[in-house]
């Protein structure tokens, strides 16, 4: 197991956000974390990356306890793509090269440059290499941010709602990229998702969080009308279309509420 989360608990002050979270992720797997707003999804991502210092529990990356690792060592094993990232007067090339930060002392090596170039090619970004990132569209920017996490050469990739600001075409493109890199480069990807259907289409496994606890976890079979009713409080149909389950909310008369 490349990532193992065991009995992790976290509170903001007196408010408990995560209580006894357990799961494991294999390399090459794409795992979606589902749950309502405020269920602790983003907090969980930050705990895994040790941006937030969780109170109790153990998180192992590559069999190493992250509590015993330096920040830089964690950054060498895990790439993190936050919900929002800032733009500015920085070229796409430099923005991606920044992902080498955990390895760079001060001077950039030829290997850093070559790896950055390879990842730009992989993400189909080489044509933008010398453009400032504030000139890019939302989809292109998201690809730049993912590319930055990739040049960290991570074993685990954490993505917090990577498709939330994107149009349909870019959503599919970004998820395709994440799926491809997870599989081809044996990276364990953990993705916070709001779009259940998009998650069903691309993910190998699902973790449903409810009030800071893992409500259920497993393959596509865990996404049922019952679990969704429990986690989201919404009545849905789950149908199969071309071998993939799709979730369709039952029609509701808004006046009834």
């Amino acid at each position, binding site marked *: 197991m490349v990532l193992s989360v065991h009995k992790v608990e976290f509170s903001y002050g007196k408010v408990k956000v995560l209580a006894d979270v357990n799961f494991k992720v294999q390399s090459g797997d794409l795992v979606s974390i589902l749950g309502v707003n405020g269920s602790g999804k983003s907090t969980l991502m930050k705990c895994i990356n040790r941006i937030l210092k969780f109170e109790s529990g153990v998180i192992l990356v590559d069999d190493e306890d992250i509590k015993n690792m330096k*920040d830089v060592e964690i950054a060498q094993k895990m790439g*993190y793509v936050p919900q*929002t990232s800032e733009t500015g*007067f*920085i*070229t796409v090339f430099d923005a991606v090269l920044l992902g080498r*930060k955990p390895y760079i002392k*001060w001077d950039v090596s030829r290997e850093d440059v070559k790896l950055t170039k390879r990842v730009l090619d992989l993400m189909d970004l080489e044509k933008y290499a010398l453009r400032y990132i504030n000139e890019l569209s939302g989809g292109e920017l998201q690809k730049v*941010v993912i590319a*930055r996490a990739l040049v960290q050469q991570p074993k685990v990739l954490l993505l917090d709602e990577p498709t939330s600001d994107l149009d349909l075409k870019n959503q599919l493109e970004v998820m395709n990229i994440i799926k491809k890199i997870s599989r081809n480069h044996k990276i364990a990807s953990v993705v916070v998702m709001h779009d259940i259907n998009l998650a069903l289409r691309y993910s190998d496994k699902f973790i449903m969080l409810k009030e800071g606890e893992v409500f259920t976890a497993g393959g596509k079979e865990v996404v049922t009308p019952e679990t969704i009713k429990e986690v989201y409080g919404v009545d849905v149909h789950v149908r199969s279309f071309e071998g993939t389950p799709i979730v369709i909310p039952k029609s509701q008369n808004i006046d009834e509420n």
Partner: protein
Amino acid sequence: MNFKDESVAVYEAYIRKKLILCFVLVLAILISVIMSIKVGAADLSFTQIITALFNRNAVGAGIIWNIRIPRLLAAIVAGCCMGMEGVVMQCVLRNPLASPYTMGISQGAAFGAAFAIIVLGAGTVSVMQADAVVVNNPYITVVAAFLGSLIGVLAILLIARVRSVTPEVMILGGVAMSALFSAGTMFLQYFASDTQVAASVFWTFGDVGRAVWNDVWVMLALMVPALLYFMYHAWDYNSLESGEETAKGLGVNTDHIRIWGMLISSFTAAVTVAFLGVIGFVGLIAPHIMRRVIGTDHRFLIPTSAMLGALILLVSDTVARSIMAPIVLPVGIITSFLGAPLFLYIIMKMGR
């Protein structure tokens, strides 16, 4: 530019362009140095200047070595300080308007100076050709100004440490300290004599002409290690520029970088403002111009902003000495004239 070819060669060419810009700035500073050394009340020819540079007993050697060179070196060193402080503050505070001037450091120094002049009796007015005020005891004033700005900075950092080390807390802290110091200065001036008020007001007119050799050495001795520290952390600032969480995800201890960045930049700012008075806007303009020209890679942004700061201050001072000659204007007036419209331009651009 075709990026598909030799990527390393292309990257090196891209870096070379930035290095060429650094070289151009150095050249511009050298030209301004020559201009600056030539301009002045005593009309010295280039031959006289060159002779005076090598022969301390030659005609004009006293003017060159005791007045013009310390003055231009002070402008260069202080300008460098202001440029790099601006870059670091704007980066660690994630705010384009952060500078020693907007963070209350100048106001702290002004309060300290007013306190020294009015309460400790360190200054009186007397008319000289270049400087209308002679502060009786310049060192008390300098030390008090330095302490004033340092108290402001430490208060901001303390508030941040207790509350949270976020840019918002620090900036609001800066605004509060700035208001507090301004009120304190006005309070002191309200009860002071006319001459004391004049001296304390005059102190705030930033002027590089006040600097003597010792001041230059002290500023230089602080500037060099501060610049090295900032350059060493250039990648950390690059990470911060991409957002707090991205930086943390890259293994950067953002709280540490923010506190030390603020402390060191404020410390150098406190020293320059204590020696030279309030010189506004250089720390704001230089980084903004360089950011647009060279981008936000701090490996280049820090040194080029420092150089541009030096260039702006040196040119402004030369203008200040020649525009209304024989009257020598304090350089702070020129930089603010130059800076205020740019400040407005930045504010208008931000809204888009």
